[in-house]
């Protein structure tokens, strides 16, 4: 396809807006290498001491491990609950499948601030605030709709005849699912895993309602840290988080790319 000429005015406007869009991420990188004790831009000296500071900061390190464990558990549960649900909605099509599917995506429509409050009000009397289980439940409410959506789409895009062919060859429904359906859904499964993991790992608002003083996720710890003092350590953590996100995206792209080579 040949390039369509783009007017210089549009190029300049788009360039400036891109600069604006990327500005916060662009300034964070140099600040993370600041040698100053406080945040200033540009920094007056350079060092990697703030990266070291993260690993010496027990609050941040604890929060990191909690976020990691939380994202892991939430992702596993989302797949474990979302996959059967997607299968039932797409392949078994019970009466009212459409309505059910809408109901299961509804939590995404609710602003997280409202959902967070709603969960706080029911979880508090149950003693779930400040507990790992409470956090898992809260995150699951928002990751599950994503999981069901992505997995449903992946499933709906599979040619049904391939599964039928397996049935004709004598495979029972469960065998068909594990030997044919699941392997063909590989790229959908990878995307779902990545999406649930990132959503849970980055989630702030729900976590702010659910965490107590002794149990903080990394975004909550960062939020509290930035709220009190915006020192360059937050920049160093931000850079690490961006790198982590990029790594996840890269893995997904590689896997999806690999998948494309053998799924037509």
């Amino acid at each position, binding site marked *: *396809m040949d*390039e*369509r000429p*783009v007017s210089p005015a549009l*190029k300049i*406007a*788009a360039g400036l*807006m*891109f600069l*604006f*869009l*990327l*500005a*916060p991420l662009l*300034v*964070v990188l140099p*600040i993370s290498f600041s040698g100053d004790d406080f*945040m*200033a831009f*540009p920094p007056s000296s350079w060092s990697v001491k703030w990266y070291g500071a993260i690993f010496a900061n027990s609050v941040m390190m604890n929060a990191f491990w909690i976020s990691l464990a939380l994202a892991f558990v939430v992702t596993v549960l989302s797949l*474990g609950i979302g996959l*059967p*649900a997607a*299968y*039932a*909605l797409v392949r*078994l*099509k*019970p009466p009212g499948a459409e309505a059910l599917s809408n109901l299961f995506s*509804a939590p995404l429509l609710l*602003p*997280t*601030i*409202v959902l967070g*409050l*709603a*969960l*706080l*009000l029911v979880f508090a009397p149950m003693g779930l605030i400040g507990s790992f289980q409470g956090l898992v*439940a809260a995150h*699951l*409410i928002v990751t*599950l709709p994503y999981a*069901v959506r992505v997995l449903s789409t992946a499933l709906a895009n599979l040619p049904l005849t391939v599964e039928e062919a397996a049935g004709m060859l004598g495979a029972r429904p469960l065998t068909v699912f594990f030997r044919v359906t699941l392997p063909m859904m590989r790229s959908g499964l990878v995307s779902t895993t990545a999406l649930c993991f990132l959503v849970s790992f*980055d989630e*702030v*608002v729900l976590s*702010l*309602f659910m965490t107590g003083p002794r149990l903080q996720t990394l*975004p909550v710890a*960062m*939020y509290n840290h*930035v709220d009190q003092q*915006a020192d360059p350590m937050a920049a160093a953590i*931000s850079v690490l*988080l*961006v790198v982590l*996100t*990029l790594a996840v*995206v890269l893995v997904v792209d590689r896997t999806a790319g690999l998948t494309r080579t053998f799924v037509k």
Partner: protein
Amino acid sequence: MTSLTLCHAEPRRLGPLGTASALLLPIAVVNAIGFLWPVVNLLKMSFREAQASGALGAGYNLDTWTNALTDSFTLELITNSVGVSLLITVLTLIASYPIALYLHRSTGTWRTVLMVLVVAPLLTSAVVRTYGWIAILSDRGLVANALMALGMAEPPRLMFNLTGVVIGLTEILMPYMILALLSGFGRLDPRLEEAALTLGASPLKTFWRVVLPLTAPGMALGGLLCFVLAISSFVTPKLLGGGRVFLLATEIYDQAIVTLNWPLAAALSMIVLVVFGISLTLYARALRRIA
């Protein structure tokens, strides 16, 4: 020769409907406990008796609602939130449109690179991006230092006020707007534009009469998305506003966590939901008018 036995006896199994129900049970439980019940409970909470101590009374009444809807602070909160969100939506649209149009016209690897640049911020935590804005807007940040280097003695305050919140949120919501616009640009056939140009319309006129109307559905979708996200955003107003900017979302959090006035927090949440409903209706109407 091996063959499958025809019609051999099977233990009683679930029918397709039974299987579907069994597979849907877990998500139904999560949805009921984590969504339906809390939302119904939230509505009920807004009618609970609030006592000065922060404790809840046993009975139900309309006090919270009547207080909220007659209190000038709450009313200002609502109008402020709606106004600021509308402003942010318009600014996001203006900032995103050139990027989306440029993306729509670029091809190949270059387009992929630009798409990654648009989506990457979407995948980074709002805390990280807000922190970036603090680095740019604070007293010792990029803008202030640049202005001082240019000789300005007292650069304007860009943080801990509405300006900072608006700038930060505009940027944070841009990826959503760009993606919504792009989804609507599918109808924008380059040949249409070329046709208009060959018919003698100036480039500006072509944009105004052909490009803009065709991209209206994308703008409506992006507008809805940004408005809804702006009015419910919490982290950015809190951090960039520094407790000096009062919006619905921040107030809900404060009432729930700091003041412990749960009925009021619940009532404010319901107001947010009402605003949501209204904007959805307006969107549906706008879409019908465009179509």
